[in-house]
């Protein structure tokens, strides 16, 4: 190994910079899962009977299921009796402005570089901060209200807009869908709810910052976004977590519903604690994300930048039900050190003339392993369905790996499905060439990686793209060989 490789690998092992714990008293349930716990969560949140019953159905179904292990990575069997299923910052009066928010909380966000004030002014972003499991503050609400847009915590939606929640909850990801989604359905604590009424174009990016804080508290967020006929919304999800020793399960569910000609753009920048160099203490990010493009000419677009977690396991998917509907998936997944990612998408073509695009960029450094798993399924009735998939892998160093598993199922002969794949390596000669032109190694890596990802970054809202580039730089600092 050359000296260059050595320094580069040394740099690659840099520590996670967002690892600190905020000391806020949490109201926490005892560890473990039982019907009683499910009932307690529901009671604590003052939920209607129908929701309790839904949770219980899910819980009972979950008991009959087995923890899945088919991903291209290993994780130990989890002890579900050792997880805290509910924790909330001590209940407080409803807050009208940021001044009333716990200063420690704000400090946490500031440490993470998430200045709310700055965002309000610069980014025109309504920020719904989810701290642990309960939404603490929601801004810009008034303005959205005027347009009939609902953007609130999931609990509030259950209280104030119960009919909408009842109509759509589980309509895309049923409670029986898969092990982790079923668990989530039983115990979800909170999350976000968005409803855009007919014909309304949401004038700002809606954004939620998630942050896992209480040690050992599994996170079971639930997000439901509905765009009614001719509506448009762009939703941003970003997160980062403090450093812990025990693995934390994150099993969120996100459901998107796009009605006639509606469009939903869902962007994620995920930076959860990946664990130490051996992967100890990192987050398990096992998330179910699915969108139903139900309406004619509706469109659902997932963009994700995944740099964190010990294991990322998720497949944001689109069911193209309406004729002429569109599904898109743009993804950058980075694995460094011992991180593993098994991610991709499912594009299910049901309606006529449905079109889907998949652009996946996997970056592996250190001993990271990145798997792309994608399913393109064209059903019988989907005349003239089109899919284009492009899966590129970039390797940094000699000990990492990239794997591609494309699955294609076509049941209609008029379908056109195209798949392109490539694997490339950041070479020492490329880095040296940059060095010889005055560009330092870290900047060189960052430039090469950003170049590799630009088709995906282009899909992100501007301010998010900048953040994503920074994140990528941090998570790969100097990791070339």
């Amino acid at each position, binding site marked *: 190994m050359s000296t260059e490789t050595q320094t580069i690998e040394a740099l690659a092992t840099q520590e996670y910079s967002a690892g600190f714990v905020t000391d806020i008293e949490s109201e926490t349930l005892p560890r473990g899962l039982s019907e009683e716990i499910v009932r307690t969560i529901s009671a604590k949140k003052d939920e209607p009977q129908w929701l309790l019953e839904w949770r219980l159905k899910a819980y009972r179904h979950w008991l009959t299921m087995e923890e899945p292990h088919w991903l291209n990575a290993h994780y130990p069997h989890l002890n579900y009796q050792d997880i805290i299923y509910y924790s909330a910052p001590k209940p407080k009066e409803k807050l009208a402005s940021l001044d009333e928010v716990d200063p420690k909380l704000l400090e946490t966000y500031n440490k993470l570089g998430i200045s709310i004030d700055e965002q309000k002014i610069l980014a025109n972003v309504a920020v719904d901060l989810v701290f642990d499991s309960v939404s603490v503050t929601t801004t810009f609400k008034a303005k959205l209200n005027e347009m009939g847009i609902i953007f609130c915590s999931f609990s509030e939606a259950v209280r104030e807009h119960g009919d909408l929640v009842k109509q759509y909850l589980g309509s895309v990801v049923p409670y029986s869908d898969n092990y982790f989604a079923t668990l989530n359905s039983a115990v979800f604590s909170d999350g976000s709810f968005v409803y855009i009424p007919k014909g309304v174009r949401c004038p700002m990016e809606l954004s939620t910052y998630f942050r896992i804080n209480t040690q050992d508290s599994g996170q079971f967020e639930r997000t439901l976004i509905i765009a009614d006929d001719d509506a448009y919304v762009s939703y941003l999800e970003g997160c980062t977590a403090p450093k812990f020793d025990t693995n934390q399960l994150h099993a969120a569910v996100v459901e998107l519903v796009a009605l006639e000609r509606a469009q939903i753009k869902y962007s994620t920048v995920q930076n959860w604690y990946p664990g130490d160099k051996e992967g100890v203490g990192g987050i398990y990010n096992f998330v179910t994300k699915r969108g139903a493009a139900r309406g004619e000419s509706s469109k659902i677009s997932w963009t994700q930048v995944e740099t964190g977690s010990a294991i990322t396991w998720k497949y944001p998917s689109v069911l193209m039900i309406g004729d002429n509907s569109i599904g898109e998936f743009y993804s950058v997944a980075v694995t460094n050190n011992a991180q593993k990612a098994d991610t991709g998408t499912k594009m299910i073509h049901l309606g006529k003339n449905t079109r889907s695009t998949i652009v996946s960029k996997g970056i592996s450094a250190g001993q990271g392993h990145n798997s792309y798993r994608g399913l393109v399924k064209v059903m019988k009735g989907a005349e003239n369905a089109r899919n284009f998939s492009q899966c590129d892998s970039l390797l940094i160093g000699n000990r990492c790996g990239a794997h591609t598993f494309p699955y294609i199922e076509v049941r209609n002969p008029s379908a056109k499905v195209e798949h392109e794949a490539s694997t490339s390596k950041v070479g020492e000669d490329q880095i040296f060439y940059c060095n010889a032109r005055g*560009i330092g190694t870290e900047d060189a890596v960052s430039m090469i990686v950003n170049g590799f990802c630009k088709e995906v970054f282009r899909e992100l809202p501007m301010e998010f793209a900048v953040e994503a580039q920074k994140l990528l730089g941090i998570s790969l600092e100097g990791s070339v060989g």
Partner: protein
Amino acid sequence: MLLEIKDLHANIEGKEILRGINLTVNPGEIHAIMGPNGSGKSTLAAILAGRKEYEITQGEILFEGKDLLDLEPEERAGEGLFLAFQYPIEIPGVNTQIFLRAAVNAVRKYRGQEDLDAMQFLKLVKEKTKIVELSDQLLKRSVNEGFSGGEKKRAEIFQMAMLDPKLSILDETDSGLDIDALKIVANGVNALKSPEKSTVVITHYQRLLDYIVPDFVHVLYQGRIIQSGGKELALELERAGYDPIKAQFAEAV
């Protein structure tokens, strides 16, 4: 003195490639280094630019009196050393302009100058593309990706013009160029010539030296400079080949 190489010995994978190189380059001078294939010319150039694979076992290199071997490759670029690669590297996905702007600003930063903003940068690009008659289209593409052999070489000279080095080392920049391109590259080098700036041209052919007229010609053979002379030495080599010098050298050793 701009560059001073003293008794430089270097190994790669235990094999000695350079065996005692001595070379002094003063400001304003043009030196040509010639020599048979595999004699160590590119190795010398790569070591000057800071490639780390080589083990320096003996000797030193001073650049404006500073110990060059102490500096990282990017610092050497900042100090004003430029290597036009014999085989320029392709960097897919990285736009040439973005790459160049990063390079120019990195070097400017090292030199204590302000960053160029987008406008100033474009102005500089316009000015310098003229020198090597480089098409704008190439700048829109990824660094060297899919460039023809000649385009790559021209792009190297363009980068050189952008980075404004004190010492340029051109490693076989003439190979693969057609006659017109050769003239353009040579004109580019000559246009950038000044009393402070020096050039080391590594070449196999007298042809280039008709356009870039060297003050000194050196013959590198088996890791040593075995003969130095004026520009007439190149003509001599063109006529007689390396055999007479090799024979002379064999006797002397």
